[in-house]
């Protein structure tokens, strides 16, 4: 009995530790600027207002940042999914000269995150004219070893007999991919889409390295710039922070099971 009570005590503490920091941002963002710094702080604000949101939307280019982030996340995710499915299929269901080396080469790039190649990446992107260009944060990071690995592992589990049957029926390779492989791999494709979208939405380092013009900023770049100022405009910043989390909340609520049931890990281990 005491064990169970202890357990529930722990759960309550854990819930508070994880909920309050995020909730506190949201609560504060709903207070009028005059009350946001009031002491003692109130968990339930005296006045609830959207004033900070109106200010944030009016003064900055919040809409532009939101749009940039959406364009980058959606297009980059689309590219990642398409090329990971094709590469995963190629590596899972074909034996060809060089297949092992290509696979190891792809997985080996795990060892080289952007953090390690900041300087030469800047030089490379510069020579392609991709600096200060949204394409520079869409295309170069689109190929990911984890995406290829996830798709390869999943597609490997599809029965060969099914593919051979379709080939005997005269299906071309493209048809085979679109009509057989893709429909059967939808769970893995969904997981990759979601994880990729979340990653791109939240990414800071690529836009930080590539983008300088303010009208090309992504949300994370804008937030980092506003929190880095000497005198921080907290009311606006908290409103923007809350808005930037909303799409992630929608994704999370819709696809929770992919995240908290460890789907991606079962995919990786499978």
């Amino acid at each position, binding site marked *: 009995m005491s064990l169970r009570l202890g*357990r529930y005590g*722990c*759960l309550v503490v*854990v*819930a508070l*530790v*994880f909920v*309050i*920091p*995020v909730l*506190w941002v949201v609560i504060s963002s709903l207070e009028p600027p005059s009350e946001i710094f009031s*002491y003692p*702080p109130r968990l339930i604000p005296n006045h609830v207002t959207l004033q900070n949101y109106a200010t944030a939307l009016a003064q900055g280019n919040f809409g532009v940042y939101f749009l940039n982030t959406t364009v980058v996340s959606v297009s980059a995710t689309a590219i990642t999914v*398409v090329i990971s499915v*094709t*590469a995963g*299929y190629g*590596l899972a269901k*074909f034996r*060809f000269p060089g297949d092992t080396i290509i696979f190891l080469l*792809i*997985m080996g*790039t795990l*060892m*080289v995150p952007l*953090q*390690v*190649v*900041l*300087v*030469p*990446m*800047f*030089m*490379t992107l510069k020579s392609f004219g991709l600096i200060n260009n949204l394409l520079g944060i869409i295309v*170069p990071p*689109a*190929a990911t*070893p984890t995406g290829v690995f996830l798709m390869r592992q999943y597609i490997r589990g599809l029965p060969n007999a099914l593919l051979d049957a379709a080939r005997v029926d005269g299906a071309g*390779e493209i048809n085979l991919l679109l009509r057989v492989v893709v429909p059967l791999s939808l769970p893995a494709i969904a997981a990759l889409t979601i994880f990729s979208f979340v990653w791109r939405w*939240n990414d*800071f*380092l690529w836009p930080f390295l590539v983008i300088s013009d303010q009208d090309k900023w992504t949300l*994370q770049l804008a*937030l*980092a710039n506003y*929190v*880095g100022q000497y005198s921080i405009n907290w009311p606006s*910043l908290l409103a923007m*922070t809350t808005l*930037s989390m909303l799409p*992630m*909340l929608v*994704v*999370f609520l819709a696809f*929770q099971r992919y*995240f*908290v049931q*460890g789907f991606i*890990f079962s995919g990786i281990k499978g």
Partner: protein
Amino acid sequence: MDIGLEVRRATARATRAWRQTVTPYVLVAPTLLLLLVFVAWPLVQGIYYSFFQTGIIIDRNIPELTPHYVGAANYLQLVRDPQFIQSLARTTAFSVVTVPLTAAFSLSLALLMKQRFWGVGLMRAITYWPSMVSLIVVGIAWKWLLGYNSGLVNYVLNLLKLPPVPWLINGHLAQLAVMAVAVWAQAGFFMVILIAGLQTIPAELYEVAHIDGARAWSTFWHVTLPLLRPSLLIVVVLSSINAFKIYELVVALTGGGPGLDTVFLVQNIYQVAFRQPQAAGYAAAQSTVLLVVLLLLTAAQLRLGGEAAE
């Protein structure tokens, strides 16, 4: 015997065989091309320029923008550069502190939430949520909480009759704050890996331990921990890699301050490369050190991943 039909059949077979040969290369080409151009090539270039004195902008038509070969000078400079040594030491200390804490904390969370009980889904979701938002957002939230005058944390301390703490104002406390927030931010993600690991442990083992009269602690020590080893190792390796890559959280939470007290390797590399003249080659040499560390850690990860897959 229809010779035309035979020929057509043979041609069709040849076409199919040719397609079968070419198809896999076409399938992997986009990924391979992108990774070669935007990972392998920069990697080679980075190592190459670590032996040169050069700025971040290179133009061989302009003498001032042309790289000069300096041999190992950049690497020799590393040893004599207190700023680099300190950022490396800070990053190592950060890793040594956060990795065990992350493993212990996420394991506790996993043990607490592995069973089905009313509200377990919500609890897991709440714990995972910090992994759904960017580290910039995490940094902003905690900067708001840890404010000296109006932060919620100091208010709670005040309720407990404790003096306010200058969390982000004092260097040592700022380092502690970055560590604590980093653990908080990734614990939920690792919890999910560990729950997945815990669920692979056969329930019979627990029944046997129970029948043998083993206490909870000894069951944990002799059943759970050894069988969870592969998942725990993955958590340790991944969180070490994260620790050496730390930058984004610091951007929002402390900006590297106060002073340089929370400047870690990646930020130091960036500032050297982009803020100092003719120092991109030197920054590339610093990156090589980071590369070697990550190489060792990732090699460990791939080996463990291979073990886990078997």
